[in-house]
């Protein structure tokens, strides 16, 4: 029997959904709300949600599945949720300029962002394959609309359509995998799955079903985190979508997708570990190699960042496949660092964007160090961090991942990782070359510094450097947020 009291534990998600609905309504009455107040309401509701997350954790008292085993509140989910809320907050902060210039309705936009975030929070807490899948759909559907938010731009609409079709396909694959697992075990609840699987793996028909179900599940999840060879949607979507949404997809959406990937691999299907480790290793290597090599040839910064995000998905998978404590907290640390770095980098891209898609090529960064030294310095920090050079959070993120891989014996994966990191220097420093070593074109307009953007970029840059000097506290936090290991 479900205890109605347990609904209180979903207070953060419920609150955020209600806030999103109110914003939607307010935004569609008459001429709607203006950007500033709408952004303020969105930020406020994110803060309240964060507080509710903390409160709910205290209320739950322990990592027990609730509401019929559909959800769970463990330290892992809290970590992921807070990270998601921070990422969303930064996304809201960097969205303003695009809404004001494009004349879009802010209420509608922010409410979609909040809906997507609600879905992500549910994903972090989901403890049944079905509740996770539904939450994923909530996130995905909101994201499809957001990706097409440049309604007047063909590229944006194209991005939304591609994202929708391929996203729907992957959701279908995921659901099919879930149904096979359900057929074999008679449950979708993660705890029960984990308990029943060991007796069934490799046993006749049920074994085949489980194997197939796992494979489909893995494909669907790799698709969502944009790991090669399931990445083909990423570059077009990242380039076509409005840049704040690209940043959101590359940070929050990726964190949430990794959160469920880890939850499902570690908690639901540990019985299969030897198989999934090897497959994950191959996917990780392919992502690192393909993502970094393809990024080499790009001339558009957004597209380069899209390919680089495929590469970074590969790095995170290194930590995932280790299936050790060190690997897991390294992943959490990396996701946190990467969130700030990516949002900061995309924030800089937004500042330089002039009209719609202009200002996105490498050559638009020429002489930025002269035109806007502080902005160039911030971008330098992000590029250094993405390459993985100290003293930045990106350096420690990679070190921890590679260390975990070496310890767990996946040395060849670590070798691929370090070599592709070295390759990535080329395209990240392509931007640095433009900013610092190329003269500025006098006709280039001065970048427009919107206060929200400047604040967000400053926060991201400072945290990136702080993580590179004093990674300790975040590591402790990540270590306290581990899942039980397979």
């Amino acid at each position, binding site marked *: 029997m479900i205890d109605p009291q347990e609904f209180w534990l979903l207070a953060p998600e419920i609150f955020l959904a209600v806030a999103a609905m109110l914003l939607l309504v307010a935004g569609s009455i008459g001429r709607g709300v203006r950007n500033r107040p709408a952004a303020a309401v969105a930020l406020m509701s994110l803060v309240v949600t964060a507080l509710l997350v903390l409160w709910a954790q205290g209320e739950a008292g322990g990592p027990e599945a609730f509401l019929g085993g559909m959800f769970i509140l463990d330290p892992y989910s809290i970590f992921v949720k807070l990270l998601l809320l921070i990422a969303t907050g930064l996304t809201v902060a960097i969205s303003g300029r695009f809404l004001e210039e494009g004349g879009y309705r802010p209420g509608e936009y922010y409410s979609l962002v909040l809906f997507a975030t609600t879905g992500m929070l549910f994903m972090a807490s989901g403890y049944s394959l079905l509740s996770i899948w539904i939450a994923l759909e909530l996130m995905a559907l909101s994201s499809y609309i957001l990706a097409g938010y440049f309604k007047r731009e063909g590229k944006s609409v194209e991005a939304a359509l591609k994202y929708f079709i391929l996203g729907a396909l992957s959701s279908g694959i995921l659901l099919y995998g879930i149904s096979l697992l359900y057929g074999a075990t008679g449950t979708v609840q993660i705890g029960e799955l984990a308990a029943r699987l060991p007796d069934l793996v490799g046993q006749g028909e049920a074994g085949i079903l489980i194997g197939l179900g796992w494979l489909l599940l893995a494909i669907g999840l790799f698709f969502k985190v944009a790991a090669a060879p399931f990445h083909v949607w990423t570059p077009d979507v990242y380039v076509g979508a409005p840049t704040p949404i690209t940043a959101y997809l590359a940070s929050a959406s990726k964190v949430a997708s990794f959160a469920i990937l880890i939850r499902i691999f570690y908690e639901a299907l540990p019985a299969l570990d030897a198989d999934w480790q090897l497959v994950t290793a191959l996917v990780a290597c392919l992502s690192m190699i393909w993502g970094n090599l393809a990024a080499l040839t790009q001339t558009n910064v957004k597209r380069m960042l899209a390919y680089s995000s495929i590469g970074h998905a590969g790095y995170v998978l290194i930590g995932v496949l280790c299936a050790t404590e060190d690997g897991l907290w390294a992943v959490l640390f990396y996701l946190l660092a990467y969130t700030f770095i990516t949002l900061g980098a995309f924030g800089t891209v937004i500042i330089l964007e002039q009209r719609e898609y202009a200002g996105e090529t490498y050559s638009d960064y020429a002489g930025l*160090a002269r035109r806007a030294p502080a902005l160039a310095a911030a971008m330098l920090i992000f590029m*250094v961090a993405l390459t993985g*050079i*100290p*003293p930045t959070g990106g*350096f*420690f993120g990679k*070190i921890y991942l*590679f*260390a975990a891989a*070496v*310890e*767990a*014996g*996946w*040395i060849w994966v*670590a*070798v691929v990782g*370090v*070599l592709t*990191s*070295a390759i990535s*220097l*080329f395209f990240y*420093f392509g931007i640095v*070359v433009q900013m*610092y*070593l190329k003269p500025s074109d006098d006709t280039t307009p001065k970048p427009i510094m919107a206060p929200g953007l400047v604040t967000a970029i400053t926060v991201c840059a400072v945290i990136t450097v702080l993580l590179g000097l004093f*990674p*300790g506290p975040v*590591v*402790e936090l990540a*270590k306290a947020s581990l899942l039980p290991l397979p």
Partner: protein
Amino acid sequence: MFDWVHQVPILSIVCYVPLIGSLFVIFFMKEANAASIKKFATGVVTLDFMVSLPLWFEFDPQGELFQFRESFSWIESLGVRYEFGIDGIALLLVLLTTLLGPIAFLSSWSAIKERQKEYYVFMLMLQTGMMGVFMAMDFFLFYVFWEVMLLPMYFLIGVWGGPRKLYAAIKFFLYTLVGSVLMLLGILALYFYNSSGLFGYGGLGNPKTFSITQFHEIGAGLPPDLQFWIFLAFFVGFAIKVPMFPFHTWLPDAHVEAPTAGSVILAGVLLKMGTYGFVRFSLPILPQATWELLPWMVGLSIIGIVYGGLVAMAQKDMKKLVAYSSVSHLGFVMLGMFALNSAGLNGSILQMINHGLSTGALFLLVGVIYERRHTRLIADYGGISAKMPAFATIFLIITMASIGLPTLNGFVGEFTILVGAFDRVWWWAVWGAVGIVLGAAYMLWMYQRVFFGPITNPDNENLEDLNGRELLYLMPLVILCFWIGLYPKPFFKIIEKPVDYIVGIVDAAQPAGMALADEAESLHATDEEAGH
């Protein structure tokens, strides 16, 4: 006399004075005020040199191996400590760095005309990075400095370099980065073997640490195949930096394109980080693998000596010539090191310093003349000794130092290396001697073409001799060349203990069947020769 250095964290002070100076420049000085920026920056590094001098006097050659130690916890989850300390080898390299600092800065005053603020900021940061590398006693900390230092050097080459600067800058960065990330994997393997265990090898179960001294202790006990792989990983990182043949191709590009001061720092200090890495890590931590791979190491060193010399001979550009001579000289350093006896190692370490002094001076001299004529082609000169007598004299002294004329520093280093090499395998020394002959050939040939004969190019008629500032920064190098050439004893004394320590470890791991050299005798011979 300088007791106070034991009361303060002297190494941190020496290391961070330039960094603090650079932060001050970033936040409080304006680009428009370039004149005061360069004075301030030069003042900072000069101050830093003064602060580092007491280390020379207070370092006790008979005392503990590592002195002036500082140790704080930094990243507890990994057991990384902020740990500084220097032995005799590191002391010499730190002093070389602080000495070359003011010299390189002074030489930039007239050479750097644009974006001066950024230039001095990067130069100051570079100083801190390099010293951190030599001072770090925690392998992780070492790695952080090792990588951090790449950034300012990248900008120095990329912004203020010659025509192909972008290519040279990214090549330098990429080569070094590839090397260092592989080295990182080696470090991690070592780290896990020491602590929680490396997959397939088990572990020693010691507390997690990157402490270099701890690695020295467990190193010899590593399983041979693990040692082999870690050695290779380190080798890539260090050999690229040295640079050893065939990893040297970044060096001529970087040297030729870098501004003068950049070349001075690059040749004087940066290359030493590679050789220092071998001495500090590869040899004492992985002695068995060292023996196993000895033929390869020596082979590459000898190829480097001869190849570098031959290519230098064919150069038309003075700076390129000096750059290739570095490949040859560093091959010498590596040959001495892999003689694996105290004479060879002593000579190798002294030659690191010598190379820093004389090649640094050569780059400065080439920079002096480049500033006047904006060409470095040997063919554009000829007979200029008549116009620039002081310049010609100093150039001659440094040339002699570089080719190893007795009474100058190069002789002491090269001779000691040859003694060590001869002691191990006699024909190694023969190849070394061939390198010396080649060195004399290309240096003297260049000198002759530039300075002697009639002045054929009318542009050279009005060359001005050295001015006071140029003399000021060249004189210390000349004096040191003579000092080491005439009385190298204090230098040998300072490195005696660490050399014995390393040779002791390496000897203990010597596989049966290798002829044991008579260490004491060869060292004795060296001292006698060097003392003359």
